């Protein structure tokens, strides 16, 4: 062990510094929801053209966004990686960094490092039905994989989206959802928890809607993301419908700092959520200590 790894430099000639963010400019900000649970989608590009061109990621991977002075946060990249001109993260205003991010304007600069994590194993899903099940802000990583599958719809059988939020004001990507409702590429089922005037779709929790839609398990993959309690019941209901553990995928949330599996914060059992996740199959999750 002594003398190991002495050869690898880290400077210009050798390895990269994964702690060092590159500078990106915000080119668009979209208010998805307002109020206490405000969500904004930030669209950004690296200031350096080469950095932008060489940035490639898999759906489900994340980036760590720096608002210098406030700190850093890990967000799922919410647009499909097939779009090369920009990246998007959808941010719920919760604490110091997200509040600082929400105060930024188009043209402001942020730091971005990544991509981190494992992404969805989309290559294994070719030829299958994919059911996307999202709740609230959990739709952000779903959007990435969903739009990727839609663009590559020839590779998959039937695509379904089951998405819901507490109220209509909490639905994110509303305009895109309205477009998708009309699209022949994907079957969309929306819901809100409590009835509202002129809401034509399902009223109830997302897990309940899953049972309503009754996606068949044969040759299917389910991808779900949302509040932990929703995920718990969605998985329960998918199992009721006959889905096996290796057919269900979710993203795990954790407090993260370094993003590269060094600082120890997101360590659960034998994995680091930042590095080995955030995408896990239910089969993998069951093998982990239930500390997430």
């Amino acid at each position, binding site marked *: *062990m*002594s*003398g*190991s*790894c*002495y050869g*690898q430099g*880290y*400077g210009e000639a050798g*390895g*990269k*510094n*994964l*702690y*060092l*963010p590159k*500078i990106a400019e915000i080119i668009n900000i979209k208010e998805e929801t307002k109020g206490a649970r405000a969500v904004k989608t930030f669209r950004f590009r690296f200031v350096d053209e080469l950095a932008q061109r060489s940035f490639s990621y898999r759906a489900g991977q994340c980036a760590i966004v*720096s*608002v*210098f*002075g*406030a*700190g*850093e946060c890990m967000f799922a990249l919410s647009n499909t990686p097939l779009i090369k001109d920009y990246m998007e993260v959808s941010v719920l205003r*919760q*604490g110091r960094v*997200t509040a*600082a991010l929400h105060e930024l304007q188009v*043209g402001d*600069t942020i*730091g971005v490092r990544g991509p981190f994590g494992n992404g969805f194993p989309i290559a294994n899903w070719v030829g299958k039905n994919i059911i996307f099940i999202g709740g609230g802000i959990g739709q952000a990583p779903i959007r990435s994989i969903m739009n990727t599958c839609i663009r590559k719809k020839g590779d998959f059988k039937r695509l379904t989206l089951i998405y819901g939020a507490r109220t209509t004001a909490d639905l994110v990507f509303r305009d895109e959802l309205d477009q998708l409702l009309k699209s022949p590429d994907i079957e969309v089922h929306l819901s809100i928890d409590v009835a509202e005037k002129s809401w034509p779709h399902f009223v109830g929790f997302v897990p309940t809607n899953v049972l309503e839609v009754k996606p068949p398990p044969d040759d299917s993959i389910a991808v779900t993301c949302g509040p*932990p309690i929703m995920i718990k019941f969605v998985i329960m209901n998918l199992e009721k419908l006959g889905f096996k553990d290796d057919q269900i995928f979710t993203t795990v*949330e*954790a*407090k993260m*700092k*370094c993003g*590269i*599996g*060094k*600082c*120890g*914060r*997101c*360590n*659960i*059992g*034998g994995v680091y959520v930042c*590095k080995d996740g955030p995408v896990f199959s239910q089969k993998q999750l069951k093998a982990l*200590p239930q*500390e*997430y």
Partner: protein
Amino acid sequence: MTQDRPMKEGLIKKGEVVRWLRALAKEGKEVLVPVETDGKVGYEPLSSVKDDKVLLDFTNSHRPPKGVVFPQNEVLLLYETEKDKKDAAGKIKKGSLKVREVRPEMKETVIFAIRPCDARAVAILDIVFSGTNMDPYYWARREKVLLVGLACAEPDLNCFCTSVGGSPGGKEGLDILLTGIDGGLYAEALTTKGVDLMASKAFEAPGAGASEEAEVTHKAAIVAFARVLKDGVVEPKAVAETLTGKYEDPYWDETARRCIGCGACAFLCPTCHCFDINDEGTKRKGRRVRSWDTCQFPDFTQHTSGHNPRPLKKFRIRQRVYHKFKYMPDNIGVLGCVGCGRCISMCPMNMDIFKVLVDVKAWEAQAKKGAKP
């Protein structure tokens, strides 16, 4: 003071040691030596120490010299947004954001008389901070550090390195191992850098049987572990296996009750490596710093949403044990503990990780008994 050819083994008289170290310092190296200050042993720069203060006879330093390769605070980068400027036409040009990496710069540093457990811990940190995601800050320091080990003649009360795959004469992580024998310190260069360090007239050829004498010193120390004499050796592989089934055992609840949730154990541990990253400064100008953190602090895993995956002490102390004795061996093939015993000596409430290992060993024995037909 260089020899014609490098030596692989040698003998240095105790009286020559400081002279050798001062010569290394004269070459431009930083040499850290063990000294006693206010009753506690610590590693200090040789330049600030008198010859007769350099210790060769001590059990272990109060704090491990981990801070040399992984300091408690480290600036990762500096950021600054330049002020907005007005151009000739009176138009405001927004100041651009500049981010600058801060590279650790260190002289070649020799840590003299590091104990085999602490050196082994550095070897463990080497693995932690490499892999597919190399940590450049760690390596910028580590590349400059040379470890000259001093084999233990006498373990401390809470030492248990032999229960975690170590030994008072262990060589892992070291560039040179020195062992006290009749006539001086028997020296073995274990790396090319060690061979270079030993290129000094201070080292004579060892007598015949010097290496065997050194073995005797090591063995004498191995049988002197109080904890092992009392409770027997613990087998770490068996520990990892036994822990698999004991995750939900009420044992963790009971053990955790007296823990007060401070970070003394982690901050005195030679292998603990968790850290936090924070921005210090204003939105316009400041620095990003990483500092030691510990899974024992209640907010370590707390999400901004308020959800905490480890809300109770029992989850946190269980994580400490499992991470060191199961997750790390399963993941990267090394234990996260070198048996230095500092966490036991420093805990104000007598949390005792060796006792936990002994209890795990008892579970294993129970399970074996139960498994018999």
